[in-house]
């Protein structure tokens, strides 16, 4: 978003509040009609997508200056993009992009990020991961019995969270790849994808991470990079190309495994008699839609009315990865999928993203609990998703809430359907941890 | 100021023929069938237009006399709201203001003066292919405007989009003597100018950010004197089919009744007990009693109506859909017994009554009526039945698109039987208060009900109403003593 577009957009919020709700025609109940975690938690209009556009304008006009109060409000947002999907059902504003740009401006003015976020950004700079874990232990998750192939054209980009915190996801992915006979390799020197940095508006540090990763990958003869982390996937898929083009394909494991199942290369033969509900991670869903290149002109059709020629693609989340995880779940015999009310492009956020988990952990937990309520109301016993960050936050909330739900990553369910003993896989994860 | 001076001033305004303090004239305005204590007014004046009313109201503010506006002078009047409660009351009898000022078929509206009665207007409307949503078999001499101002229940709930229907715009002289027009009639412009612009005074709301017609309505003449009003009309049906369903179980009929109103399937829709249906249809006490015995206790009457070229098609669809509902509810259509002739029912539903159907059984009746929600109707019926030792008529009327229900109990008695009358009088208010205590909403609190009803209502309502009264009638010249305006 360039300067001109930013200025044009921040003046155009209608203050209609559509950004607070799922798209209006998708409202299925009173309980699950909202889309914005920040509004649900903090209530003042200022916290909404529209409210933050107003703040951007007020800041731009000098009506308000940089302050801790401003910083807190702007950073109490998971950048889940739900507001943008709802707004863009009819409108052409970009609440999420405005938010990202606004944060960048605050950072430039010394009003961001949050101290906790600054801490993890420093950690990334120092040890390549936001958890401040030793870089050299990044691969400790890898069980000895997993086969990797240093010459493979498939790279499994594990990401910081699966490497250090959600090892079971990394392990499950690796085992499935092995089971399907897909040879894969790991990066020798994987570094944080930069997503948690980018979302806080610290652009230079993000670019540093991006370049490290792209340099490392492009030095290899790799044609596909596979991710089990939705955040890394989104960052590679959507954000990197805005700054640097690359020439390999990116796939989330749900896409790859769905293909393998359809092609008969992964045979899910074991019955998994569970009732599950699936949480669409924002980074795998609505935000995983690439920006289509548009090189058209804005033409004045008549005074005050402009038209894009050719038609400018509207990024509304339709191209998110929605079918593959559902196809996988439907391929598992005995498994029943009960959908939540808010799904796909209007899925409710888990609450962890954009630095919220570190800067405002209580907010993150409360948001996750709202999502758990919705999951519980489906009658499911299992909550399943495809993102380690969602996994962490949702599992933290399950503990906090004392929910009867169990959380599994979708790859763990695949393992069960492959006949592997998930407990053993988990034990193994604990062991390596 | 002496009484004579008041009268002479009134004569100056209305002309000698149109003011009277003749004792025999005053007597007719001194009492009615209610238990409100009789009291003679100072005089009666028959103004002929708004200008004169404006002058009289201004005079009342100047000379400190009170005004009781009356539109249906022919009576019998029932509720005590027009009986003087103070000295120096002048009855403003508007029954001679009888002009039908406008009848507009295209826009389904008429503009009438207060003296226009149901007897006057129903035949006129029928000839024009129009229809008014009327109360149940209203007295022919009853003022249409007064009936709407008093929010009398009407019989087609699906055409009652608001509790104020069918009243639309009004011209009113407030208690201050100021002339005002409500709704779109308020302007800008005169009625003629508005008409030129295409306005037909259809929109009752406003002007702008208040709707004074709502505070004039239900005020028993204590806020303003309405000199004309526009009234909402419907198209007259070409075909009507009457249904009469009987049961000993009120709830069974109520459940079916609910679906009829929920899906807006019928025009007239009401429930009567056997005695009231008999009173409506028959003339003599014996005929009434005979028919009542033949009927089951509860009677649901509904009318399906079709209009225009496709009237039959409409009836077919309605009959089919209703048959499905009956089947769903396990209702036996054979309960529809043809004891009663359809034409007779249509007559009482569509035509005015030359006398009063409530008088036929015993020559007298006292009515208790209030609003209830749907669920509590049977409970109120039980309370009433347990409290009553007289012949009891029951009438249940869904209102306002089925959101509330008018519950009316007609206690039939012989007014010439002193003991019966005395006993009823002693127990009447007790029964009413018992119902009020149970949550019956006496939203039209006449006579002695007012005190009881307001006592059972939040104090803020009274306080707000008093503020409103103070604005529109600061000197309390209009019908003092009614509602909650006298401290």
């Amino acid at each position, binding site marked *: 978003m360039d300067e001109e577009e930013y200025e044009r957009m921040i003046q155009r919020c209608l203050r209609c509040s559509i950004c607070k709700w799922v798209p209006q025609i998708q409202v299925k109940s009173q309980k699950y009609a909202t889309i914005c975690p920040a509004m649900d938690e903090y209530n003042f209009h200022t916290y909404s997508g529209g409210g933050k556009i107003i703040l951007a304008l007020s800041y731009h006009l000098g009506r308000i200056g940089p302050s801790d109060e401003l910083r807190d409000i702007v950073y109490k947002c998971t950048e889940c993009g739900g507001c943008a999907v709802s707004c863009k059902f009819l409108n052409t504003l970009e609440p999420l992009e405005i938010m990202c740009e606004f944060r960048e401006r605050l950072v430039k003015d010394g009003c961001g990020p949050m101290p906790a976020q600054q801490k993890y950004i420093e950690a990334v700079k120092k040890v390549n991961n936001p958890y401040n874990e030793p870089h050299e232990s990044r691969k400790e998750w890898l069980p000895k019995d997993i086969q990797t192939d240093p010459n493979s054209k498939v790279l499994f980009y594990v990401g910081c969270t699966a490497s250090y915190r959600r090892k079971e996801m990394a392990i499950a992915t690796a085992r499935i790849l092995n089971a399907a006979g897909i040879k894969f390799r790991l990066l020798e020197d994987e570094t944080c994808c930069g997503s948690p940095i980018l979302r806080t508006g610290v652009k230079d540090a993000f670019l540093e991470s991006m370049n490290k990763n792209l340099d490392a990958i492009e030095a290899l003869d790799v044609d596909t990079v596979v991710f089990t982390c939705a955040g890394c996937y989104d960052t590679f898929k959507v954000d990197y190309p805005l700054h640097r083009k690359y020439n390999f394909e990116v796939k989330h494991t749900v896409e790859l495994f769905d293909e393998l199942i359809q092609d008969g290369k992964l045979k899910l033969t074991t019955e998994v008699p569970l009732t599950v509900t699936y949480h669409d991670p924002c980074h795998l869903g609505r935000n995983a839609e690439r920006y289509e290149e548009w090189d058209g002109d804005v033409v004045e059709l008549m005074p005050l009315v402009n038209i894009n020629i050719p038609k400018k693609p509207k990024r509304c989340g339709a191209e998110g990865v929605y079918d593959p995880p559902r196809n996988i779940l439907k391929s598992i015999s005995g498994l029943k999928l009960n959908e939540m009310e808010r799904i796909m492009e209007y899925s409710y956020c888990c609450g962890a993203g954009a630095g919220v988990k570190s800067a405002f952990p209580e907010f993150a937990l409360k948001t996750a609990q709202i999502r758990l309520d919705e999951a519980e109301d489906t009658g499911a016993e299992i909550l399943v998703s495809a993102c380690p960050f969602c996994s962490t936050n949702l599992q933290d909330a399950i503990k906090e809430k004392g929910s009867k739900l169990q959380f599994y990553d979708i790859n763990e369910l695949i393992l069960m359907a492959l006949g592997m003993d998930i407990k053993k896989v988990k034990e193994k994860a604990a062991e390596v941890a | 100021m002496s009484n004579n001076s008041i009268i002479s001033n009134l004569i100056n305004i209305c002309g000698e023929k149109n003011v009277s303090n003749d004792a025999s004239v005053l007597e007719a305005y001194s009492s009615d069938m209610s238990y409100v204590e009789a009291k003679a007014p100072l005089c009666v004046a028959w103004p002929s237009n708004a200008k004169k009313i404006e002058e009289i109201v201004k005079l009342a503010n100047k000379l400190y006399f009170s005004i009781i506006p009356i539109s249906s002078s022919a009576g019998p009047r029932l509720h005590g709201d027009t009986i003087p409660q103070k000295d120096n009351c002048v009855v403003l009898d508007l029954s001679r203001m009888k002009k039908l000022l406008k009848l507009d078929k295209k826009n389904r509206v008429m503009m009438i003066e207060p003296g226009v009665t149901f007897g006057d207007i129903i035949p006129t409307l029928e000839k024009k292919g129009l229809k008014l949503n009327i109360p149940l078999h209203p007295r022919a001499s009853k003022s249409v405007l007064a009936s709407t101002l008093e929010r009398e229940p009407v019989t087609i709930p699906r055409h009652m989009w608001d509790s104020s229907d069918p009243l639309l715009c009004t011209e009113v002289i407030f208690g201050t003597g100021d002339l005002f027009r409500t709704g779109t009639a308020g302007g800008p412009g005169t009625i003629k100018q508005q008409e030129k612009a295409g306005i037909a005074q259809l929109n009752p709301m406003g002007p702008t950010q208040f709707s004074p017609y709502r505070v004039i309505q239900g005020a028993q003449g204590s806020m303003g004197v309405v000199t004309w009003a526009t009234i909402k009309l419907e198209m007259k049906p070409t075909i009507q089919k009457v249904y009469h369903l009987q049961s000993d179980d009120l709830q069974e009929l109520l459940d079916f009744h609910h679906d009829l109103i929920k899906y807006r399937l019928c025009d007239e829709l009401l429930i009567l007990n056997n005695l009231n249906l008999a009173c409506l249809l028959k003339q003599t006490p014996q005929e009434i009693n005979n028919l009542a015995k033949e009927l089951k206790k509860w009677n649901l009457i509904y009318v399906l109506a079709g209009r225009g070229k496709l009237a039959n098609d409409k009836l077919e669809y309605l009959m089919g859909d209703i048959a499905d509902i009956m089947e769903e509810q396990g209702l036996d259509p054979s309960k529809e017994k043809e004891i009663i002739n359809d034409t007779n029912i249509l007559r009482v539903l569509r035509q005015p009554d030359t006398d009063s159907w409530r008088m036929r059984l015993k020559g007298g009746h006292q009515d208790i009526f209030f609003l209830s929600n749907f669920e509590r109707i049977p409970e109120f019926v039980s309370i009433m039945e347990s409290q009553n030792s007289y012949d009891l008529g029951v009438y249940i009327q869904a209102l306002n698109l089925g959101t509330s229900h008018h519950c009316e109990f007609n206690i039939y008695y012989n007014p010439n039987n002193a003991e019966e009358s005395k006993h009823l009088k002693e127990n009447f208010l007790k029964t009413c208060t018992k119902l009020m205590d149970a949550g019956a909403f006496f939203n039209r609190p006449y006579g002695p009900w007012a005190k009881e009803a*307001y006592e059972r209502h939040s104090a803020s309502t009274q306080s707000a109403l008093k503020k409103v009264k103070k604005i529109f009638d600061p000197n309390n010249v209009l019908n003092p003593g009614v509602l909650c305006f006298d401290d």
Partner: protein
Amino acid sequence: MVLEEDTFKEFEKAVGVGNVNDGEVITDAYAYNWCMEMFNYMDGKEPLPYSSRPKAVILPSSTEEVQKVVKLCNKYGIQVKAQSTGLGPWNCVSSNNSIVVDLRRMNKIVKIDEKNLYCVVEPYVSGAQLQAEIMKYGLNCHMPGAGPQVSPLASATSMNGPGFTSPSTGHSSRNVLGVEWVLPDGEIMRLGSWGMKNNPDWFNGDGPGPSLRGIMRGWAGAKSGLGIFTRVAVKLFPYPCSTDFELSGHSPNYDFKIPDFMRLYVMDCKNFKRLDEIIIQVEKEEISFMCSYLSGLAVMAIFANSFEQMMELMAVGGMKAPLVVIIAARTKREFEYKQKVMDYILEKNKLANIIGKQYTPYPVFYAEALRSNLGLHGFIATGGFQSTLGQCDTAKMCLNSATLNVPAKQLFIKKGAVANDFGEGVWMTSYESGHYFHAESPTMFDQTNKHSVKGTAQYFERSNEIGLVKHLGAPFFVEGDRWHDMFGPHMHNYHLWLRKIKEAFDPNNIADGGFYITPGKDKKGALKK
């Protein structure tokens, strides 16, 4: 800190910690609103989209908390402006001595009364939320043209209230039953049967005796100038067809399974005279779920989800007097009957339905029609949009008004202040099966362009003047002292009565009357008692 520390603490005590904020960041967002720039310009101020900044924003969670807040405002002489979902400049304060009460935390559907066909809602229940819940009972609610995201309570108590489904769901003001209302002096008022001490219930809002609904609001609402509404009962209507609501695909190009018994008609009546006759013919048959006249450009807009898509519909936009009717039915019989009626009307008037022949809308149009989302399409051309005029009585008057407005609008189109709709942009809907009609003139402008804002404001004023001079009724934005004082003398001095109401119910002038009326002053400048 803007509020005195003690005052802040008292407010905080009333509504709980975290629910009062007087910081500039929170409060500045409440100073901004849609079209504020235009109203500022009309008030002789700089055309910025901000009002004065409220002194604080307060989030009460109950009627009792609202009452405490209002009493504190009386104690400290601070004005209060309430808002529910908060769309529009009337949600902004009109002085620098006002706080905003944001009713956001009052978001309960208190009751869905299937048997008595009403529901009770708090201020922050949205129309879409309410509809989603009542659809489960086969019921529908009225929603204003502003869209399903706004508050049904605000529409019923405080705003105007025409909507696309008005032929079958009426007007917000006329759907009101019981009401809970915190008066400007802090007293709690419960209207009608809800005010009873024994077994209060919401089914009726009138009486005992006169109905205070007439003080509460008129055709337009008091925009919080006469207190704060905390709960309202509103009528419900039968849902027009099957409540199965099957959307598939993704936003914004959802696919929708059009209910079996639902059909759209778009017919060009060619001129207003015929349109007037035909719309009344349709409405007298009591068959329509929706029945609107929309100018050609507006028809294009309701069928499009972007301006580019709208431009693909030029063929539709060429109609001179398009009548848009939707019929819907619960049963096959009902549907066949309604279609027969429409066929008859079409044949009698030699009209053609273009739907399915010249044009077939995307199925999502039907979903939006059922969920009252069509009004929001007014924004897709320029992003800036406001309705001028706003009159309500006969179809003929509405169409006269539209015609008289064309030259005024064209003048501002020529000046480049208003986007070119040939001056014809109008939406007219029937209410209550054609018993009356509402028209407004959607006007597109660019809110970021000062020339456009100023010109649109001037056009807005000109439109109101046309209403006055041509006796078309008071347009729906005749609100605030300036407009009331202009129209009142031509309308039996209604403004003096309205002002008396304000004075009687708000003796300390606490409810912000910027979009209502303010009390008169005596010669010394003190408020009249």
